[in-house]
């Protein structure tokens, strides 16, 4: 299987080369996407088979390339298999979607080669088994995605997005590099096996964990390292945005899990507090940012930040439990996190596909200029609605299951002995609850403003339903969201061996249980059954409808909307996304984002238009990055005169340096 995976990666790289070779030819795009679809599907099937058949098996391979004297180590275990499944599910879907969507691509030469290479990079990260290979592929992934972000470099803001992205990415890579340096030790034992074998002391483990949190977090979008994410994800073509948000952030999570749970193994318990603190912050701030957006793709990107927070809450809890010797609870938390990884990759890809469909149909990303699309693109609307419901954690869809599991993990945490955790965990729970509710609000807004109401612009009126392939992909993912929601037991069982390998415990097998319900801990304690719930909802809704239509009237009359006596209300009177978010903005925004609202309302009788302006500041930019950039610029300005000295002054520099060194020698001994 490992051989297969690597050869698939090679095939992807070959596809990239092929894309370069094909260049501008018209057939390039279908060929490349078809090829990458085929390859990632093979990978998906293989990894799935591996995960189902014998997940416990570990296959390794060492190629004579990479770091001299080390070689490139590759390894396939349950964890990698799971993430391979996740990555290639997204990858094949994106390729398929692009078969339709890619036709609208204006600069295929800037997209095609990097798309295939990007897929290859993400797969390689999951397979890498030594620090060098890991970082090489990790950065390769960043690099290719950067190329995709700046593919449309002439659109305003994209170049900046790419810049911020790549700088942050290499910052993260350097942090990971430091962590590896710490774990490898001065002797430079870079193979993961060696790191597993060497058990670092608490201090080293803690520092390494923090570095990994920074390094992997900057790629995953943990606040305050998230700033690149809402810039970069929307800038890329939509199928790539889906990959970046749906898959790449998860690869970052993989990095965290791999290093922390597998390589470090035993970080001190208090590191979990750090992780939980950042996770909680990320969760709430992410969804609040998302609520403030009116660019559909940027809203989705910001919302990714929230989900990353949820995942990290699970991971933080897992660390806490594991270090306090409660492995079954650690297994629960980790299962929840990984389950959410899968779920988020499902619905976030779905939503980005939907956003891409809207974009290609209307050439608009600004929700304020959309609306009423449910009439023009009904199928997209259905799929998008499912995505919105799933991401808002509404039963019986999949988003709810993973959040439910996370809540269950939080509810067993009173067993944790340390005070810090006793206070931190419930606080995080409260934040999680808050973010769950806010997420629902966010996606009521996203769907309501984009698809419901009346079209606000010509573009929205003239929208056409997108091509069949894109629709097929979207519906497939919507279906998957449903299945994962009503049959969670199956997925939890597949996750069992993965978790087992990391924390030494796994949840009790679920698939055997009556009525297909899931019981993470004990039947008396908590259980959930999506299937029954779905049946209940469906049957009661249909029964009621039938009843009403049968025994009461079904008469219906169409009439214009109630206009309060003002004929033909213009679409401008509709609630906009900023007005929808206004109450939340008032409640949370003023403190968190220093929101400034400027309203310029003409007095009675004046004919000029009214103006309303909202400024939302990202505190991360304001208090962290802004000052940083300013200091750097100032330093550069301070030093710059050194370029313009006279020769005599330069000689003086040399001379004084020489004297200093001589004095050193004289003073020495």
């Amino acid at each position, binding site marked *: 299987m490992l051989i297969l995976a690597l050869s698939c990666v090679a095939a992807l790289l070959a596809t990239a080369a092929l894309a370069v070779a094909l260049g501008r030819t018209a057939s390039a795009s279908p060929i490349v996407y078809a090829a990458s679809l085929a390859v990632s599907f093979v990978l998906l099937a293989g990894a799935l088979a591996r995960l189902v058949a014998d997940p416990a098996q570990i296959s390794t391979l060492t190629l004579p390339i990479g770091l001299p004297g080390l070689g490139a180590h590759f390894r396939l275990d349950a964890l990698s298999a799971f993430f391979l499944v996740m990555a290639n599910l997204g990858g094949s879907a994106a390729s398929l979607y692009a078969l339709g969507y890619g036709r609208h691509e204006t600069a295929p030469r800037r997209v095609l080669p990097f798309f295939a290479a990007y897929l290859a990079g993400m797969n390689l990260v999951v397979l890498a088994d030594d620090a060098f290979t890991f970082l090489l592929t990790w950065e390769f992934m960043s690099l290719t995605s950067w190329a995709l972000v700046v593919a449309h470099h002439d659109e305003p803001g994209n170049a900046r997005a790419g810049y911020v992205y790549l700088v942050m990415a290499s910052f993260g890579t350097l942090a990971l590099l430091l962590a590896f340096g710490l774990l490898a030790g001065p002797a430079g034992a870079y193979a993961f096996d060696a790191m597993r074998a060497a058990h670092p002391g608490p201090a080293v483990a803690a520092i390494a964990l923090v570095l990994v949190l920074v390094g992997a977090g900057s790629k995953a979008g943990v606040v305050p390292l998230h700033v690149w994410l809402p810039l970069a994800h929307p800038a890329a073509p939509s199928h790539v945005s889906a990959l970046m948000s749906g898959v790449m952030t998860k690869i970052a999570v993989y990095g965290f899990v791999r290093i922390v749970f597998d390589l470090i193994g035993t970080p001190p318990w208090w590191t979990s507090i750090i992780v939980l603190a950042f996770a909680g912050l990320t969760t709430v701030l992410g969804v609040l940012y998302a609520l403030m957006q009116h660019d559909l793709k940027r809203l989705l990107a910001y919302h990714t930040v929230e989900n990353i927070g949820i995942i990290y809450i699970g991971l933080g809890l897992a660390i806490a439990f594991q270090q306090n010797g409660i492995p079954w609870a650690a297994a629960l938390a980790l299962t929840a996190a990984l389950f959410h990884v899968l779920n988020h990759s499902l619905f976030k890809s779905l939503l980005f596909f939907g956003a891409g469909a809207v974009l290609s149909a209307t050439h608009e990303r600004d929700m304020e200029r959309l*609306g009423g699309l*449910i009439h023009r693109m*009904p199928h997209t609307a259905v799929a998008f609605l499912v995505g919105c419901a799933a991401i808002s954690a*509404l*039963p019986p869809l999949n988003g709810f299951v993973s959040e*439910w599991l996370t*809540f269950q993990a*939080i*509810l067993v*945490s*009173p067993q944790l002995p340390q005070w810090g955790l*006793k*206070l931190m965990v*419930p606080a995080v729970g*409260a934040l999680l*609850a808050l973010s*769950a*509710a806010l997420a*629902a*609000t966010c996606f*009521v807004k996203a769907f*309501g*403003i984009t698809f*419901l109401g*009346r079209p606000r612009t010509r573009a929205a009126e003239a929208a056409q339903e997108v091509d069949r392939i894109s629709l097929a992909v979207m519906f497939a993912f919507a279906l998957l969201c449903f299945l994962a929601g009503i049959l969670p037991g199956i997925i939890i069982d597949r996750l069992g061996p993965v978790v087992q390998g990391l924390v030494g415990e796994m949840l009790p097998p679920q698939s055997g249980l009556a009525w297909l319900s899931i019981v993470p801990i004990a039947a*008396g*304690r*908590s*259980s*959930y*059954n999506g299937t*029954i*719930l779905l049946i*209940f*909802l469906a049957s*009661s*809704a249909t029964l*009621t409808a039938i009843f*009403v239509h049968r025994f*009461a*009237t079904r*008469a*219906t*009359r*169409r*009439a*214009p*909307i109630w*206009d309060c006596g003002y004929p033909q209300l213009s679409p401008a*009177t*509709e*609630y906009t996304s900023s*007005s*929808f*978010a*206004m*109450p*939340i903005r*008032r*409640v949370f925004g003023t403190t968190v984002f220093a929101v400034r609202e400027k309203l310029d309302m003409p007095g009675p009788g004046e004919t000029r238009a009214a103006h309303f302006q909202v400024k939302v500041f990202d505190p991360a930019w304001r208090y962290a990055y802004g000052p940083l950039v300013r200091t750097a610029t100032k330093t550069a300005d301070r030093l710059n005169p050194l370029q313009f000295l006279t020769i005599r002054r330069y000689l003086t520099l040399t001379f004084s340096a020489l004297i200093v060194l001589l004095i050193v020698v004289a003073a020495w001994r």
Partner: protein
Amino acid sequence: MALILDLVEQAVQMLLVVAIAPLLLGVTRKVKARLMRRRGPPLLQPYSDIWKLLHKEAVLATNASWLYRTAPYVIFAATWVAAALVPTYATGLLFSWSADLIAIVALIGTGRFALALAGMDVGTSFGGIGASREMLIASLAEPAMLLVVFAVALVAGTTQLSSIAAQMIDTPVGLRVSLALATFAFVFVAVAENGRIPIDNPATHLELTMVHEAMVLEYSGRHLAMIEAAAAVRLVLYFSLLACLFFPFGMATADKSLAAVSLGLSSYLAKILAFAVLLPIGETLVAKMRVFRYPVFLGGAFAAAALAVFLQFVSRGF
């Protein structure tokens, strides 16, 4: 055989909540009117309202979509299922394990989600106002509610409603600070979620103050009936939750003998009737709030619930 009995029981439960819902609404209205020195509508007025609405033709806005037409049924179904899963007069319902307390809260959320979307469908500004305010209230109330859930679950050691109730009855936990706080918070949340004063006024049709009414402004006929019914059921749901979580005494737990069941039934009815009387009394004592004072109100609930949870984390004794 036992299965059939269970099924019957479950069915009874489902019908019960629907059956008594309008009555409770009637009771609250009546009491309120009395408190205002009005005679008020007859107790059974809600039934005939719904009946009438059901038989009127539904007037749809020209640009209403399929979502607009299906939403009422979804809302009703979600609320109904949620209510049906709350043990009312007896624990250990057949399907009560299929959704625990968290799931029930989320189910209510599903209903709300559909309602808010339906409100935005025709694209009037009222729908927008209603939806955005409803979601604001929800995003403040739901976390408080979940914290209440935490507090209770931590006391009972489970999120399973039946088990919680059973636990509370079999091993009386006595008076707990955390539970008191949780009850307090729960009441606030319930008031908010049901759109009662001081959050919302179910009787008003003044655009600027209304929340729930604004969303359903465009609805008529059977759709409106469904939504009204859903609202009524939601009230029952919250009453039953209150009864089941904090005042579970009298419930039929282990033995399903006729006596026990009838005792449970009667005690349940007594409880919710009491709530239905207390609610309007409370409502008449306070005034409707401005929208931007909701955070204060619900923030109080959130704080109380959070405090309860913290106490539980600190020591199970609280």
